[in-house]
């Protein structure tokens, strides 16, 4: 009995060691964002300062137009995710029912393709159409990220939902669309939640598309925080505060939806082979 307890304590500390790089990093990130310049330049470094520099956060929003960029991020991620759900959920359903396994290969190839190779042709296309100054180019190109995620998760989900109800509805004379809408869709709600969360996270985090396609007014948060580096005397406090603002929404989402994220990622990854 006591050896089992000892074993558990040993495992707990082993886990603590493994998690410590993550804990220390985020602690230091918070610490940097709450220190005045003088404390951030101190040697030896200070973890918890005597005075907290909440003004760093105020500065981020006042001096860098961060509210606009936050709104851009919400619009791009929100629209790209909703569009992906709109077309990806039915597609996942269709592929699962058709057993069209080759389409899964297409999605794997989409994963292998470097984002930059989409960017050159689509950049030219957007330029010709003349929509480069708007948010649309980013919304459209984010579909490259969001649609495969949604389709992938939904195929996996619909493959495990029972067919009996759908068959019964079919016999009762319901059309394919009615079967999908009234029978399959309600059962698939947990799967849709997983697809939504993963799609939001990976679209929100995307940097490479924005860095090419965004103009001054259409930057998303990751691009905005990167740009803070180039056009001002780099002061660490506000920069760390900005970095935290950018990543906080996804971290909060991760904390609250840990189970769904783990389920979605492992299912997708395992099927990916």
């Amino acid at each position, binding site marked *: 009995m006591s050896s089992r307890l000892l074993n558990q304590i040993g495992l707990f500390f082993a886990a603590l060691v493994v998690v410590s790089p993550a804990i220390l990093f985020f602690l230091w990130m918070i610490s940097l964002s709450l220190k005045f310049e003088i404390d951030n330049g101190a040697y030896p470094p200070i973890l918890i300062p005597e005075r907290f520099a909440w003004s760093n956060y105020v500065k981020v929003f006042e001096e860098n137009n961060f509210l606009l960029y936050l709104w851009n991020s919400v619009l791009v991620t929100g629209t790209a995710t909703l569009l992906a759900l709109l077309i990806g959920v039915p597609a996942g359903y269709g592929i699962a029912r058709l057993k069209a396994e080759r389409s899964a290969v297409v999605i794997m190839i989409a994963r292998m393709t470097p984002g930059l190779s989409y960017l050159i042709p689509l950049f030219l296309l957007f330029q010709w159409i003349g929509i480069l100054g708007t948010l649309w180019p980013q919304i459209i190109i984010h579909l490259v990220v969001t649609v495969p995620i949604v389709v992938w998760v939904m195929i996996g989900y619909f493959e495990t939902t029972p067919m009996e109800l759908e068959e019964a509805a079919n016999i009762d004379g319901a059309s394919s669309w009615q079967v999908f809408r009234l029978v399959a869709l309600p059962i698939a709600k947990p799967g849709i939640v997983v697809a939504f969360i993963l799609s939001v996270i990976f679209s929100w985090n995307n940097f490479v598309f924005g860095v090419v396609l965004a103009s001054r007014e259409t930057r998303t948060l*990751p691009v905005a*925080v990167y740009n803070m580096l180039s056009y001002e005397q780099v002061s660490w406090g506000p920069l760390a505060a900005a970095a935290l603002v950018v990543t906080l929404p996804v971290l909060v989402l991760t904390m609250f939806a840990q189970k769904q994220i783990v389920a979605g990622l492992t299912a997708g990854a395992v099927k990916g*082979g």
Partner: protein
Amino acid sequence: MSAIAPERTGATTGRAEVTTDRTEVTADRTEAATQAIEGSQSIRLAPNYWPFVVPALVVVSAVIVFPWAFTLWMSVNRWTLGQSRSFAGMENYLRLASDPRFWESLVHTLTYTSLSVAAPMLLGTVAALIFDARFPLRGLLRGVFVMPMMATPVAVALVWTMMFHPQLGVLNYLLSLVGIPAQEWIFNANTVIPSLVAVETWQWTPLVMLIVLGGLASVPREPFESAEIDGANAWQQFRYLTLPMIAPFLMIALIIRTIDALKSFDIIYAMTQGGPGTASETINIYLYNTAFSYYDIGYGSAMAVVFFIVIVALSFILLMLRQRSQWNDAEGK
């Protein structure tokens, strides 16, 4: 779980009926409908699932297939943005073959990739073995462990840049505590790739951990009990029981990690932009610079094509290895 099993069998049989010829289905439809009205429950109408897939097909071909076709076409053209375009045949590809900067970037890419596959694989497997066991606060710690891979890469990269700072960075201070001299990390051509790999490892070890943890969950208990009775120690149990059983999952993690490491962009671009000099310039970064700093989109497209071939080739080799190892296993029995 067992409650779902019979339903799944039902689903499979149901699907077998769906895979009838589509034209036949259309022809039969009126007849089937008549029969359905007559109350004959035995005839099932195969629903048409294609309309569900079509919108996604349209979008995928617009956003994925079109760019590929266009990239191929651009790659055989001499084309710098703002200048006139002319057909170049294989010129861009030949230029790549004799471009020392491209070969250098290929070496950087392969170094960066092998390191950022090996380290997360090793650490991720160890972490998975720990998290597979039961101990207090396991769920919470696992949640924190997963956070780095969800954090925005650019934001993470900026904070790491501050931590790598040679004078004010916290890392050199930590090194000084254990008596190691200060390093220049990403600001020195010799240490820049290992430093970037450290960040990549920090961020992506959790993905390997999750995949391997999924594998460990599927490992049956019984063989370990009999091994225990036979007197096998913990290492032997791991080496001869656990490892072979989770091998397919390790292979999947390896393939995914390889693809992602080859494609890595955000961390490298945000921290060094390929510098100092070109010391950390991978193919992806060189490709970005060619297309969007020099606007040489013809040459950049050729690079994109070659880069994609490299990724597919490496993934294919890994998949072949996986198949061969499975084949060998079967042979061994």
